[in-house]
């Protein structure tokens, strides 16, 4: 199976105190970045689908990781190559010149040439939390989609059984390939992904895998190509317009209550939760 995964770097939430917000923009210089966690889960899912867990060094399929970002975002791609992806593509762009729709349109074009059987994405990016690229992409491609995947069982190169996380339960869908799937947190639980190559009772360690140090060195030699955004789409106009930025309001100090009855009273009259 050929899988294309989109991967974005996001500002490390541990640096939240370093972020400067002006009414015109959010200043990102000097911040540290890490991969968007949901995108990391998508990469992990792609790797699990294309390997026999008994020998993770051998890839039984092809995994391509794609990012939209500046040159510095290549380290995020290299890190994904180190965990086992085969090749990487960076579409040269900066965050302020992108929105979910433009990314989806450019990805659709890229997919025409890459011809994957499956496109995996994180359900959302944790900076903007827009949650729309997967849905828009499926529409532009005219492919079936399954969003918020918490489990995936591969039925070979023809279909996937996807467990979607919905309020109050799971919705099981069979999607025929090629398809677009966005993943949720539970996809990296030990038994969430079943490939046709791995024994059904195999349990992975919880979470995403760590790159071996040797693979980090070897990732230098894997293919990483750069593509211009304008080569993918003539229309680089944005549909989302930001009108202003402001930091979230500081949290107000709490109050101390003297007794349980006072607490119950406040929960009833002020918080109105009882």
């Amino acid at each position, binding site marked *: 199976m050929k899988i294309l995964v989109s991967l974005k770097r996001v500002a490390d939430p541990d640096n939240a105190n370093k972020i400067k917000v002006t009414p015109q923009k959010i200043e990102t210089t000097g911040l540290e970045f890490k991969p968007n966690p949901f995108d990391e889960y998508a990469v992990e899912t792609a790797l699990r689908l294309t390997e026999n867990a008994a020998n993770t060094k051998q890839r039984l399929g092809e995994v391509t990781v794609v990012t939209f970002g500046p040159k510095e975002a*290549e380290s995020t791609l290299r890190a994904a190559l180190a965990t086992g992806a085969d090749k990487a593509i960076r579409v040269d762009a900066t965050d302020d010149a992108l929105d979910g729709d433009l990314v989806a349109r450019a990805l659709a074009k890229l997919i025409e040439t890459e011809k994957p059987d499956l496109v995996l994405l994180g359900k959302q990016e944790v900076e903007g939390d827009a949650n729309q690229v997967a849905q828009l992409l499926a529409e532009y491609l005219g492919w079936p989609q399954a969003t918020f995947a918490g489990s995936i069982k591969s039925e070979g190169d023809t279909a996937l059984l996807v467990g979607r996380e919905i309020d109050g339960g799971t919705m099981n869908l069979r999607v025929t390939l090629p398809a677009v799937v966005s993943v949720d947190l539970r996809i990296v639980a030990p038994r969430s992904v079943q490939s046709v190559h791995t024994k059904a009772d195999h349990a992975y360690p919880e979470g995403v895998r760590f790159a*071996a140090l040797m693979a980090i060195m070897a990732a230098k030699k894997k293919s990483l190509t750069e593509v211009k955004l304008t080569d993918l789409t003539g229309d680089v106009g944005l549909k989302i317009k930001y009108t202003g930025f402001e930091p979230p309001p500081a949290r107000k100090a709490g109050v101390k209550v003297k007794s349980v009855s006072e607490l119950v009273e406040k929960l009833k009259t002020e918080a109105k939760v009882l």
Partner: protein
Amino acid sequence: MPDFFEIARHLTAEEQTVQRTVRAFVDARVLPTIGDHFERGTFPTELIGEIAGLGLLGCNLHGYGCAGLSEVGYGLAMQELERGDSGIRSFASVQGSLVMYPIWAFGSDAQKARYLPKMAAGEIIGCFGLTEPDAGSNPGGMRTVAIDDGDSYVITGTKRWITNGNLAQVALVWAKLGGQDGPVHGFLVPTDSKGFEARLIHKKMSLRASVTSELIMEEVRVPKEAILPNVKGMKGPLSCLTSARFGIAWGVIGAANACFDSALDYAKNRVQFAGKPIASHQLVQAKFAEMLTQISGAQLMALEAARLKEEKKLRPQHVSMIKRNNVRVALDAARVCRDILGGNGITLEYPIMRHLCNLETVSTYEGTHDVHTLILGQDVTGISAFE
């Protein structure tokens, strides 16, 4: 802990990824259980497979299934491991620098092929037996001897304070060949050899999440091929120590970082007097200013040493300086951080007391603070003050 001098800009993309990867591993696998291991006095053997799978064992060696990291990359890996616990870093240091490195540097081709790939994979664990009950700072005073007996050597003696001793399948034992006046040689002794016994050392208050043992050897017979063929004299063990001490000098920065981060977080949230966090007081800020300065200095020294090592210009005296300085910086920082946490500082709920206890060992092993003082003193004056 802020990267105050932005040393990240000197790191290659691979080195940054190495650091991030080991950090993520430590966060996910080491930190959740290390406090319990420390309390129970057990080494987390369940992590050996993953540590090896990551390629952390012998990661600066080339070939034989080793990762072939740069010296900076190796240092960063040790730093992130020790941010978890000095015991985990010690496990990796002993395996990589004290056993794999001498086999790699001084071993026969057969020894390299037999041991290195399996040691990198964590399938064979090694320990390094130099110190003895009566020979610590002066290892040249060792009493263990190896007698040539035709087609084998017969080794007799006692080693003490041996990290990984009860975990190991092979012990690199340093012994005097032929008798008390003979030259020191290294021997690769399988720990299941007849006459070989490893006894756990109990009642430790430091490096509790690490196995420390006494090795008792009574006429242990090993084949002639067990000797490390390409080194003779104290240069053998000392060059291993230089390699391990380099990793220690990086490692302790990780321990210091962990203490600093924990104390800073605590100080910003702990409110005493007039509703203000203790971090708002000048005395507390002075502590952080001093620690930031000292730890940043330690990091810069380690980085410079790594570059010298890559240029093949690193002298043992450089390593003495960074081992001595950086361990002291980390130990001082751990003590100050412990103080900032008040009563909470003495518990295992926070990492500080654990690091503080561990660093007492790190200050002693691989040449005590004062032994390195004497090495530097000799370097400056040309006069040995050891005797």
